[in-house]
């Protein structure tokens, strides 16, 4: 079984975002970068499938700069066999990134391609479905359960008010949602082994952006509290204000 997992290096969720003076990006000073949290579920699921199959190759791929090697080493430490750094710049929208990934993947043997459902930096949530479209593969996004029963693959996909059970054929693209599994931590042994695993570099250049960033701005400030009461005695006043002032009840 040949499994590829596409990952991304992103700022940690606890990071405060400071916009760079030119408004075209964030100030990376003091920002802790991590493996995209949703990608952890993708990597874990890929590892489990490979372990169950008892054979196959798990390849981690990312598009990014030199620093993204650290992210690939994390995935290797979790248990991936090999890694590929597509050295370049992701696009601001998903398509340019998807085109580079699809171009790399198109001639390789693929059974399953995993992604996290979205990267928590640009929050585009586009690349998995776009790669599937470009490679003419089926795709299931926001997957919280994956199983193969009697040779047929099923994915459970989160939608409003419930879950769809989707039957699909392979090769396919799967985008992982939190809840799919409990990702493992890299073991010390894994971290040591990762240093010796193959990490290939391919120059790809800058992806084309069809959506162009004009500027980043901080989120609108909130006005601040108009009423803070104390204890259950304040409930009547709160409800009155929510009805008459805020008009939300």
């Amino acid at each position, binding site marked *: 079984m040949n499994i590829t997992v596409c990952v991304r290096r992103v700022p940690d969720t606890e990071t405060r975002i400071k916009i760079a003076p030119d408004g075209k990006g*964030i100030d990376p000073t003091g920002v802790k970068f991590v493996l995209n949290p949703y990608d952890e579920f993708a990597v874990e699921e890929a590892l489990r499938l490979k372990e169950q199959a008892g054979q196959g190759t798990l390849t981690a791929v990312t598009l990014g700069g030199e620093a993204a090697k650290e992210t690939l080493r994390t995935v290797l430490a979790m248990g991936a066999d090999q890694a590929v750094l597509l050295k370049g710049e992701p696009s601001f929208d998903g398509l340019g990134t998807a085109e580079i990934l699809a171009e790399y993947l198109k001639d390789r043997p693929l059974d399953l391609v995993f992604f996290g459902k979205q990267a928590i930096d640009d929050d585009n949530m586009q690349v998995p479905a776009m790669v599937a479209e470009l490679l003419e593969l089926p795709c299931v996004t926001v997957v919280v359960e994956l199983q193969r029963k009697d040779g047929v693959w099923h994915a459970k996909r989160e939608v409003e008010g419930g879950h769809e059970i989707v039957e699909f054929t392979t090769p396919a693209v799967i985008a992982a949602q*939190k809840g799919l599994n409990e990702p493992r931590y890299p073991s010390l042994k894994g971290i040591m082994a990762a240093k010796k695993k193959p990490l290939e570099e391919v120059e790809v250049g800058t992806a084309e952006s069809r959506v*162009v960033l004009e500027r980043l*701005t901080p*989120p609108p400030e909130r006005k601040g509290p108009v009423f803070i009461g104390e204890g259950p005695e304040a409930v009547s006043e709160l409800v009155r204000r929510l009805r008459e002032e805020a008009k939300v009840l």
Partner: protein
Amino acid sequence: MATVLAFAETRGGRLRTVALEAATAARGVADALGADVAACVFGPPGVEKEAEALRRHGADVVVCAAGESFARYSPEPFTHLLAEEMARRDPLVAVFPASALGKDLAPRVAARLRVGLASEVTELRVEGGALIAVRPVYAGKAFASVRFASRPALVSIRPNVFQPRENPRSGTPAEAAANPVTISARTRVVAFEEEQRGELDVAEAPIVVSGGRGMKGPEHWQLLEALVEALGPRASLGASRAVVDAGWRPHAEQVGQTGKVVSPEVYFAIGISGAIQHQAGMRTAKVIVAVNKDPEAPIFKLVDYGIVGDLFEVLPKLTEEIRKLRASAS
């Protein structure tokens, strides 16, 4: 005349609220560009009758694909049909809802057409004849203003932001879609597991009641469920990451950077301190209300209204007062 396209999502043959939001957003853009709105609606036989509501919300033309094969969403046939329709109408802009369906379909259509897509847009405006979209990035820790270097400009709009507005257009009958052939799908929805509380998702609910670690255990969630019940059918439950990670609540309810990002009319944060990643998921709510025993909790910096106190005393009283209020109003 130039066209702005709106994708009108249905479920069970009925329009979803996000369909009317997409029509409303498309109408606004079309007016600024001097264009017509074409709304595309796919669904089971009989879905044509939904055209009326779309016309009432600003659609000049309603394009229908009605058939059993469109009764449920399937990415490949939907992409195929919509791409054909877009080739035929050559729209300037296409508006999708940023719903589970829209976020699956819009990227496929964008890749098919090789055009740019801006996701989860919260503001659309036209400057010098060009569309500018504003969208949150880093889960709302920053906002990006973007323009489009390809046509059509594809956007998906965040639920609850573009409130449906009536703007009736004269009634021409619904048109049939260009080429509603069924192409084989390699993904097929074979079952739907419905949640107890029905279709209203925390990401789309106008009223959200979220609980955090201050609730002290899953067994106390009945207090929050009672408040949701009192607030009526427009309310839904949310949760902080801490309680989802602890296994008290399902991930589908999580609000925050690795959960849902919500923009309800009112957000109740109950026993939630307000970590940065949680704030990222709810700070665009129109009104924020918090109940927390710690007056120094970061959530109080965001709120419009708050009560400092023991939530086990405050919550039952709040539920009771809201129940009384709604009973007297109805």
